[in-house]
């Protein structure tokens, strides 16, 4: 059994951690939080120059060709750094959609630009509150043009292109839209995590280019499954950083004449946080194996990774605030960076309720569990 990343990717993870420790300390997400700057463009350029945006893109399309496992290790480090860059939108979603469902011509045209960071891509799906169920999508494409509104699109105000989910009927369910085209109106929206900008997109008869492989609602689920795995690593990275922060504070903060980390009320809480992070990490590894091998188990593995990471992220980041006491609730402490981001990432791609139902339905369809 070799249930670990290969050595060269462990090295890549270490390099990424050193780079981000240096270039993306908490001051960087804070700058985005405190100013109108929508994202850290300098950091994004540096990340793209190192080839991270094209890590999974094959070399023939201008990428580095390291595969999806490389995206997982980079995602974990970006999560740990709460990096204010459009990595998830552009890499896990837009790039992945084109790799999975694009035509050869589309791949040749778009992937090199996405790999170099020359353009930023995103994914637009939500039309109303509720489950991210493709069959509930209202908008459709008529005569190659798309009209409708997409809510809370991550990086919607800075992206150059969007992969837009529509009710495609018998045709493509995913379409590429040039967000600079006439008919696109974008309005930045205030969100729970201003370190990652979001926009409402109003589209009026905008030209939409189908991704020919995306026939059927199930293809949207497949894209969400592929995205859920690196997203889980990003969530685990953030949860680990929040756990580290709480642990460090529990060692240095004194009350009643002793470090608060010597009280079992704090100690056991931190042990519970550690347990949640490790279980989520192990489940994310399983997801990594599934995207790496293209395994038939992907829908199960992605759901498990997603649910564990979302629940760990919530638990650990809220208990990090609790461990810090009143100071944890202040703007000045960094606790809220992790808290906001954890909840943001657990909503992107849909909340845990819908992933839980999907997981059980997948398990029932497979009947594996019953046989096991």
């Amino acid at each position, binding site marked *: *059994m*070799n*249930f*670990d*990343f*290969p050595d060269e990717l462990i090295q890549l993870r270490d390099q990424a951690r050193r780079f981000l420790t240096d270039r993306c300390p908490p001051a960087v997400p804070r700058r985005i939080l405190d100013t109108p700057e929508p994202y850290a463009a300098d950091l994004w350029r540096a990340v793209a120059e190192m080839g991270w945006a094209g890590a999974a893109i094959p070399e023939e399309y201008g990428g580095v060709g390291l595969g999806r*496992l490389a995206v997982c290790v980079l995602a974990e480090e970006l999560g740990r750094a709460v990096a204010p860059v459009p990595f998830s939108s552009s890499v896990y979603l837009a790039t992945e959609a084109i790799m999975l469902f694009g035509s050869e011509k589309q791949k040749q045209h778009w992937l090199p630009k996405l790999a170099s960071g020359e353009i930023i891509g995103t994914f637009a799906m939500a039309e109303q509150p509720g489950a991210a169920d493709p069959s509930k999508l209202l908008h459709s494409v008529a005569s190659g043009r798309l009209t409708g509104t997409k809510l809370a699109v991550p990086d919607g105000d800075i992206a150059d292109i969007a992969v837009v989910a529509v009710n495609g009927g018998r045709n493509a369910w995913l379409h590429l839209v040039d967000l600079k085209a006439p008919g696109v109106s974008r309005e930045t929206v205030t969100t729970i995590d201003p370190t990652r900008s979001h926009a409402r997109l109003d589209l009026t008869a905008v030209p939409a280019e189908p991704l020919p492989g995306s026939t059927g609602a199930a293809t949207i689920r497949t894209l969400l499954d592929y995205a859920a795995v690196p997203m889980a690593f990003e969530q685990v990275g953030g949860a680990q950083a929040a756990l580290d922060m709480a*642990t460090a504070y*529990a*060692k240095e903060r004194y009350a009643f004449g*002793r*470090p608060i*980390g*010597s*009280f*079992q009320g*704090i*100690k*056991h809480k*931190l*042990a*519970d946080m*550690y*347990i949640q992070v*490790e*279980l*989520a*990490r*192990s*489940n994310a*590894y*399983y997801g*990594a*194996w599934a995207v*790496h*091998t293209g395994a038939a188990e992907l829908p199960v593995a992605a*759901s*498990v990774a997603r*649910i*564990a990471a979302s*629940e760990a992220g919530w638990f650990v980041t809220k208990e990090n605030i609790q461990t810090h006491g009143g100071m944890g609730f202040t703007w000045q402490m960094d606790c809220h960076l992790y808290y906001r981001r954890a909840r943001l990432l657990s909503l992107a791609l849909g909340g845990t*309720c819908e*992933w*839980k*139902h999907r*997981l*059980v*339905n997948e*398990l*029932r369809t497979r009947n594996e*569990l*019953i*046989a*096991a």
Partner: protein
Amino acid sequence: MDFEDTPEEAEFRAKARAFLDANAERRKPGAVEGYRRGQDAPGAMERAKDFQRRKYEAGFVGIHWPVEWGGGGTPIQHVIYNQEEAKYDVLSSIFSIGIYLAQPTICTWGTPEQRERFVRPAMRADEVWCQLFSEPGGGSDLAALRTRAEKQGDEWIINGQKIWNSGAHYSDFGILVARSNPDVPKHEGLTFFILDMKTPGIEIRPIRQISGSSHFNEVFFTNVRIPDSRRVGPVGAGWKVALTTLMNERHGMRDAPGPDVAELFRLAQAVELENGLAIDDSAVQEKLAEFYVRSQGLKYTKFRGITALSKGQTPGPESSIIKVVAANKLQDILSYGLDMIGMAGPAMGEEMPVGGIFEEALLYSPALRLAGGTDEIMKNIIAERVLGLPQDPRADKGLPFRDIPTGARK
């Protein structure tokens, strides 16, 4: 990244399977491994000993030990053998105190004569062992134990009481920690012994458990004599010697046997709730998903540890979470299962849904959160050794043992 055995591992697994197929009965599909299910059946001990002898002769006992202890294989081979054995109905666990707790301690701290005398008979199950550590006044705080060991010539005289001693009633030998010096701080006054359980002055009383059966005992000592040649390690070093035993105990902790998420799925597919089958109920689905995620997290955490072993490394700290997660998951799952069974739930027996495993687990599961380190102690260990948090301040630190206040019943 893969789940495959290396060619060497696959070869070893095939060898293990061939041995098990020839010598044990494979568990029927869908059957659940209960906690010590079958141990009370007539003739169980004889069958267990017979299997153990064959297992020893085939070279599957102490696989991962050094050659001079009788091993010579690798830690990953030990894991592979246990993965395979878990699919069969065998009662190896009866001998695990002797093999995996007593012998490594004796090999690490004992004399060559002790090793020569005790290791092989334990591996062959010719001699069965129990552990005589916990006391009414010394459980999680084991070093607070009060059983006295007083030197008289070449012998030690033991007086006092032990508790929670699994299998003491059928054991030939016990590993015993006793207080040889009450005038020094508590960790410094202990000494470790091998006790022949047939020595005069030992009284064993079974403890009736919540489940009604009696797998462990109280053991009383009245002027019990142990020759000094049966002392393990130096006088006063008993705490360090016992730590070797405890490390092996925690290291060897397996998953909690009993109903898991697969059994809960089977139940949910069989039971009707107010709006149809339980499995179609959205609230039930969410709970099933949560349990599945926890169960998988545990499985893949173990896989990460096995990967480290497979590469010849020591498993990382993540392995320390397994026992506490497994035992709590078991209680959460069995409780949810009982709720689904509903008004019919109280009845016990094989004819109940999924073979009555939910009701049975209710009555043994509390043990799994206590034995081998309580949840609270395990979380202290995670907090202190993994996260590096400071220890609790200790009120008894540096005090001679006899001056430490106790709340033990007189």
